[in-house]
């Protein structure tokens, strides 16, 4: 179960693992936690395709980083970074497949005064959404760069993951 004293940073991967590139957010976190040890104050969460149910995990979170597949009408693998108020504004336009759940969660957090101080979204343009556990090649190629981006963001927030010796 979640730590009673909630961590300061939540890395939230969102998406459906069974629909190939839809699962990119979860795959990034999977790579991150298998190659790095996260400091205690950082929690990586597989949010699946849930929305409001994730509100519980926002309690006490100061920094929220969301990683998701995002339809931008661009080349598969294209990357988008948004922060602050851009995130809910963008999601309310219903571009992400999870656009209902995550904006509801953020809005509810606002209503209940647990909205994180910093919110960042990394979005990846999917190529394939066919039923499959594999990512398509252009999306697979973005996993390591995205892990590096997440690490950079964590360092900016004052947390330093340490590489695992595997």
């Amino acid at each position: 179960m979640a730590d009673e004293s909630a961590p300061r940073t939540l890395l939230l991967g969102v998406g459906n693992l069974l629909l190939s590139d839809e699962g990119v957010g979860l795959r990034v976190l999977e790579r991150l936690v298998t190659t790095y040890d996260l400091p205690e104050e950082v929690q990586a969460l597989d949010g699946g395709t849930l929305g409001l149910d994730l509100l519980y995990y926002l309690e006490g979170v100061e920094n929220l980083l969301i990683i998701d597949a995002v339809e931008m009408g661009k080349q598969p693998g294209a990357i988008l970074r948004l922060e602050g108020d851009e995130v809910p504004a963008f999601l309310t336009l219903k571009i992400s497949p999870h656009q209902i759940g995550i904006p509801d969660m953020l809005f509810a957090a606002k209503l209940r005064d647990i909205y994180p101080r910093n919110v960042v979204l990394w979005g990846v343009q999917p190529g394939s959404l066919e039923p499959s556990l594999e990512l398509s090649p252009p999306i697979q190629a973005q996993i390591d760069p995205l892990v590096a981006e997440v690490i950079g963001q964590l360092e900016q927030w004052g947390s330093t993951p340490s590489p695992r010796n595997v």
Partner: protein
Amino acid sequence: MARIVIDPITRIEGHLRIEVEVEDGIVTNAWSSSTMWRGIETILKGRDPREAWAFTQRFCGVCTTVHALASVRAVENALGIEVPNNARILRNLIAGSQHVHDHVIHFYHLHALDWVDIVSALDADSIATSDLAQSISDWPKSSSDYFQGVQDRIRAFVDSGQLGPFANAYWGHSAYKLPAEANLMAVAHYLEALDWQREYARIHALLGGKNPHLQTFLVGGMSTPIDPNSQHALNADSIALLQGLQAQANQFVQQVYLPDVLAVAPFYLDWAGIGEGVGNYLCYGDFPDADGSLWFPAGAIMNQDLANLIPVDHEEIAEYVTHSWYSYDDDSLPKHPYVGETNPNYTGPQPPYDYLETDGKYSWVKAPRFRDEPMEVGPLAHMLVGYASGQEEIQSTVGSVLDTLGVGPEALFSTLGRTAARCIETVIIGNKMSEWIGELAGAMAEGDYAIHENSMWDPENWPAETMGYGFHEPPRGALGHWVHIKDKKIENYQAVVPSTWNASPRDANGKMGPYEAALIGTPIANPEMPLEVLRTIHSFDPCLACAVHVLDAEGREVTQINVYPG
């Protein structure tokens, strides 16, 4: 005649789309379509059946654990496994907590705003709101200061333009009937339900290991250890914590949710005569007792005939694809899930399009039928089957709600009945949760820590070929998984999910699905603002309830409401 289309258009994957024809302010025809193909079952072919549940819990983002439970039950049925008593109790607790959690969230966050006008709440008098709240419940948060604070907060949100989901609505629509004070009270409870949900989520975490995706299921039982002497198992402390969380949750259900439903319903009694639907109800039964009998009884009701409960045999379930974008060798005949096929055959128009070709295939949802009839599933089916079979808690609680509202059982066959049945179910299951926690404590006290039956774990002990099905009654109703195992691997896997029953399109005989039938006869005050359609569709708690939310952020229309004059 006008045709109204409600469809979220900008998603990567489309979800639920409703088209209705309106004549003289009344819905005369309706079509329910899912514009999304998933076919996720195909991923399971060739896999180890013991792992299937971990994949099936990803079928759907809204209902994770329910697919895990149906899956392990299907494999256990195929292999002839009986789970230990503790596993039975833990599964009842996990499933029961899902009902309590989801129903409260559904009522306040997915359905209430169909009945409650937030903008009107800004006109409420906080002292009168306090009087109203205290007249219907002992819930402590009921002072005029409290309601004043809520009103100020909502006003600040409205003034700042950060409306979020509140921007979606038809505020001021003539179908909103509540006085301003009732609206303010309901908005306050909308906010409280968010806190309630955060607190109650701890119960899932206690029971399930990793939340939100549980790790605790196993074919043959559970993996959550029970041991009063271990800090890493369910122990006496966990039992006390579970009891406390459940008692707290039940207080909210009994002092807020139920009184709210009873207070709002009298303003909308006309909705006890709207949204009836197919009039057939199916419940697989669930929540096994220690003696193997089902606490929620199984049964089917045809043509609203509560005097004639029909036994459920899974052999009598079959799915048509006549109006669905799949092909069978003969599209006019249905197939049982054991031999079910998922061969996509999209024949619809290329997007963007105005409306579907509803004479032909028009949905990615198949049309499941029981004894060749469309069936409604969900809390109303649970309550009606329980009522008809004389289940004690269901009969008495349903009876007392009907008495309070001054209506007979026929009022249940409606949009309002569906919403009331969901609340009644929450009350009943919430109380039963406390009993199950007690059962678990009792087993622990007797030194029974068994959670897994492992005699059939090793595939060497399996028959070369076997088939099984797993039934579960999650919050949205009848869920079935069917598995065919051959040479230790999954040969075929089919899931018939609750929203497939309810969102079903027409079948080969032209019979409408439950959503479609329920919309016929619905009055529409303003075709540009089809609030009445949303009420009935939301009363079913569509798994994709979100899909028929009508979001509109500051004039940027993001969900398509098209009205075509005809």
